[in-house]
């Protein structure tokens, strides 16, 4: 089944009869309806469908990933799913679709923006939406930023290096976790490592804490002075910070990193025995 069919099936299974009937009728009408009807229908969704969690089962999440690799709608709500469903069901090709999407975003409320951005991996003509995704990264509304950055395969697949790096840095800047960013390790790059290291220094100068997750994208490119920074964290850091520095050193290609890590036998062993992980650092108990 494709994503459109899956959304249809999941919503049908969850919506009360009247809401389900509205959605089915509307989806059908939109295939031939006016632009006005289209915009009104999308905005009506929260009133007709409600905002409860979509709450997919693990089997359904597996269906999602099979239909569209990387698609992870575990945090979606009913209105979010219904909006993306209507967008897809209206059945337009790339140019018409992105023109409508632009129009929708111009007049969107927060919930709609979250839905439109989280739907990015499902839209026709994928490369066409790069500027839209980059615009989402520029938002000042945390929930909207998260819709692009978290559990969304689109940025890693489509964003060029500069906006990708901005997205990762901004996630730290606004205090959200890096771990749910799809493709975080695969898209790490030396320029990002430099930006993050500069950011860590800025925070240290200001006497502010540095998220331990930052070092995850530094490690694979850490050599020379960057190793000294990681040494500083090992020396002075909190428990999670030291674990992060150890993991970062373990991912560095520089033999000096290995030497540095070995000088902290407890952490060195913890890394070898998988007692520390980026997931645990991102989600402290």
């Amino acid at each position, binding site marked *: 089944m494709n994503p459109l069919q899956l959304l249809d099936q999941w919503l049908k299974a969850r919506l009360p009869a009247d809401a389900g009937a509205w959605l089915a009728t509307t989806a059908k009408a939109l295939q031939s309806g006016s632009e006005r009807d289209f915009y009104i229908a999308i905005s009506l969704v929260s009133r007709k469908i409600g905002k409860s969690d979509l709450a997919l089962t693990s089997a359904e999440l597996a269906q999602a990933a099979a239909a569209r690799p990387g698609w992870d709608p575990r945090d979606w709500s009913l209105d979010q799913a219904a909006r993306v469903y209507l967008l897809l069901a209206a059945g337009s090709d790339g140019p018409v679709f992105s023109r409508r999407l632009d129009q929708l975003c111009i*007049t969107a409320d927060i919930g709609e923006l979250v839905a439109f951005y989280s739907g990015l991996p499902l839209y026709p003509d994928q490369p066409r939406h790069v500027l839209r995704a980059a615009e989402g990264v520029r938002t000042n*509304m*945390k929930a909207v930023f998260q819709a692009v950055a978290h559990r969304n395969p689109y940025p890693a697949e489509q964003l060029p290096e500069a906006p990708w790096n901005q997205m990762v840095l901004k996630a730290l800047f606004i205090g959200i976790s890096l771990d749910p960013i799809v493709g975080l390790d695969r898209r790490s790059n030396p320029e990002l490592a430099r930006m993050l290291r500069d950011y860590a220094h800025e925070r240290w100068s200001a006497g502010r804490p540095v998220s331990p997750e930052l070092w995850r994208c530094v490690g694979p490119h850490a050599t020379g002075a960057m190793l000294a920074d990681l040494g500083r964290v090992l020396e002075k850091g909190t428990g999670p910070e030291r674990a992060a520095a150890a993991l970062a050193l373990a991912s560095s290609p520089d033999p000096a990193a290995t030497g540095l890590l070995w000088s902290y036998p407890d952490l060195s062993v913890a890394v070898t025995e998988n007692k520390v992980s980026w997931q645990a650092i991102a989600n402290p108990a």
Partner: protein
Amino acid sequence: MRFIDPHIHMSARTTDDYERMAAAGIVALIEPAFWLGQPRTQVGSYIDYLSSLVGWERFRAAQFGIHHYCTIGLNSKEANNEALAEQVLEILPRYLMKEGVVAVGEIGYDDQTPVEDKYYRAQLALAKEFGMLVQVHTPHRDKRSGTIKSMEVAVEMGVAPNSVVIDHNNEETVKDVLDRGFWAAFTIYPNTKMGNERMVEIARMYGSDRIFIDSSADWGVSDPLAVPKTARLMLDRGISAKDVEAICYGNALKAFGQSGQMKEEHWLSPAPVDQRMLFEGNSVLRGQTPKVGEVPSADQRAGEVVFK
């Protein structure tokens, strides 16, 4: 005691205001679409403004634990630019059904020109088409006759009085508004509109049925704490707590709650999804119980409870 400010233009206010409003017990507010002090000349600036009411401003309010609702409409001043008004009317339907839009508003008369009348009627028709409430701005000048005309036209257009809030009332208009079955809102304002000592007398005379107050605070001299301050004054002057609660909270909720978009449960027991999407922290959940009319000390005028 909790408060609702059912008419306040937060786009023109700072985060200091949000902080003080939350501390004074305001749990929810309604931001009517209005003008910006200087007329807009392009439909594009109107679109961006309306989008900010359902987007950015809602997010800002949420950061302080305040629930933000809005009304959407073409205000009477800018209705006088007919070329602009036509284009605005075209895009309004795209906003009316959005989440948290509680009414078409604020609409009505300013100079009471024929063009204002045309777009007031057109928007009453939209309210009917979409099954929405209406929030009416009554004129500063020639107020009594403008207020009566607003109500007569609403009835003529087939809009039920109990789905219309008539705002910016005073001693001269309140009786007509209540007698005709409309909701009567009062703007408590320093210098112009209603002072809150006068409001106490209105509460004494008319009780608390279908009456409520707001601050209409905006980019001019105005006070975002007008509702909690007036509540305190009413209690000090012997108005019963039950009436004060109705005038400063319950009646606004009753009136705008008819939209189905504004519910007490939003701030008393927010859904998890709401927390996830919007709220940094919720004052209700943090267990704060602000004192009635408690005013944080930051502001110079904070101590002045009385509005002349």
